[in-house]
């Protein structure tokens, strides 16, 4: 399993930015965050004590359409619960998140964006961290496909997803809550519970579940938990940014 790779603060103009690549799903996303910014069209009575979150998803090789509005809605709802929009300096200002799909296949008409969703979520999170937007927690997400034999496949390609029985995207907070679930296809609840367990293992590792032989096996299959990968990316950046300070100390 090739771990996704990410880089923080890749852009000059934006307050925060991140680039994220996931080789297994073939997605390559560039994200930027501008926050807090004045929103010109904003009106007073609309949530005056909170920040307004705007998410814009720009497909790589097609004009944005109805599908993008939908996935923007998903991202916005999730990020809205994570961003502390009432911290000082944020109320009635905007947090503008722009995500450009700069690599990989385009999403077809009516396709649910599920495969790209974890990559979009991770890019948004890293860009928010890079812009130092206050967050109540971080999260990690993954996409899983279940084929007809009941096999769970992690981060399927677009073709695999098309032939799968069901596709699931799950996001977990850094505190272990299930933040997001998007499942579609045809499945029963037992299948979903297996998927949830596997997804939790991918995101957090299996330490939480039990300490028996399963741990080692799951580690083998899924490698390092995603959360750790994300954390490391951020830590690397912090070290780089505060190099002068750390060295001086």
């Amino acid at each position: 399993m090739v771990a996704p790779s990410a880089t923080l603060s890749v852009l000059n103009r934006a307050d925060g930015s991140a680039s994220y690549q996931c080789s297994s799903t073939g997605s390559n996303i560039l994200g930027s965050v501008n926050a807090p910014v004045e929103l010109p069209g904003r009106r007073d009575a609309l949530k005056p004590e909170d920040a307004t979150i705007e998410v814009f998803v720009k497909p790589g090789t097609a004009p944005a359409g109805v599908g993008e509005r939908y996935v923007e809605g998903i991202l916005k709802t999730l990020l809205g619960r994570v961003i502390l929009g009432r911290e000082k300096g944020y109320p009635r200002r905007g947090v503008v998140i722009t995500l450009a799909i700069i690599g990989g296949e385009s999403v077809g008409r009516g396709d649910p964006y599920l495969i790209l969703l974890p990559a979009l979520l991770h890019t948004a999170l890293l860009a928010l961290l890079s812009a130092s937007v206050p967050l109540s927690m971080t999260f990690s997400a993954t996409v899983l496909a279940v084929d007809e034999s009941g096999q769970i496949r992690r981060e399927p390609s677009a073709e695999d997803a098309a032939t799968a029985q069901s596709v699931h995207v799950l996001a977990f907070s850094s505190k272990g809550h299930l933040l997001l679930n998007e499942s579609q296809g045809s499945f029963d609840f037992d299948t979903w519970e297996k998927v949830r367990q596997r997804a939790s293992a991918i995101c957090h590792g299996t330490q939480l579940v039990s300490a028996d032989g399963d741990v080692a096996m799951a580690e083998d299959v899924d490698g390092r938990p995603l959360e750790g990968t994300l954390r490391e990316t951020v830590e690397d950046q912090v070290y780089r940014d505060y190099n002068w300070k750390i060295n001086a100390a």
Partner: protein
Amino acid sequence: MASSAPPPALTLPPSQFARLQPHAYLLAHLSPPAASNQPSLRANGRQPAQFRPTSANTGSLTHTNGSAVVRVGDTTAVCGVRAELLPTSDIASWSVSHASSGAKHRQNTTKNDADADADESQIQDLNLLVPNLSLSTGCAPGFVPGAPPSALAQSLSHQILGLLHSTRLVRAEDLRVWYQVPSFGGDGDMDVDADDEGQKKKNDGKEIKAFWVLYIDIMIISLAGNAFDAAWAAVLAALRDTRLPRAWWDADNEMVVCSETVAEATRLSLRGLPIASSFCVFEADAAAGWRAVIVPDAEEEKKIEEDQRRGMQRRWILADPDGYEEGLSQERVCLVVDREMGKTVIVKMEKNGGWAVDGRELKQLVDIAAERWESLKLILEQC
């Protein structure tokens, strides 16, 4: 919950209280003081897991191939299905086959048990289903009539399209207009067709001349929350009502011609009956979500939950939320379930906007959605 009780001595009629302190108003209904001996009900008088009364009515619109009006409480969705023809000669990619996929895909097009239809993706590839939902109907204040679809309308349209595709509700075979190429050779047409003999798109001299394209337009006439359930039910009812005329290729006129005889028209044979149930989560603590307190992690959460089950309830999962409740909750769950051979099959399960709902809650909701499936099935079958 002394903190969220209305300030002392200020008396307000319920309507004003509902407007000024919506959160406290709903909370007061859901957790009445123990002394009052009142049941915990929502402000609209429903039980938490209770759906609004639903009615459906089909076939009342003259200029449609199928239509339905579905009312879920005060939310009303009107859906009209209009079928138009897409001649294959108009499809740019029709004469194009992909060498890699062609071998896999386009083989058995005459097979009628369309569950095994390998060309099912034609619906998606050729845009044969075109659902659009409109909220610019004056259905609620705040939607400007005549304005382009709002983000909400766009994502509802997209969700409906996504669900039509993922459930494969409509069979591609129902939408094809076939032509049996005359087997006698010699005439000019035949040459062209003979060239095509090796193709996979036709079989035994049969060839697709056109597709029906279904324009599925949903007008939300009245919006009082939970537009998706009503819209989807309307789409489902309208598609069940849809009749396509018998159509054939008229070689003389070189066009597809239809029969107007009702007896010859066929109904769509839909796959299953997926039914949507939406829920929202109402938190007792109005500030949960934004107060900069430390959010308990999942393990702590479970403990708190256990402790509080005995005492005060912290949150309620409300089925089929009305507009008022939707405005007061952030976390949403949408379930689409079907029944296959007595077993509940989940077709879509979405949850977003919070951390209250996890496996245990979802399991309960699936059961509620299955009950909803039964009741809505009866309603749809009677209309």
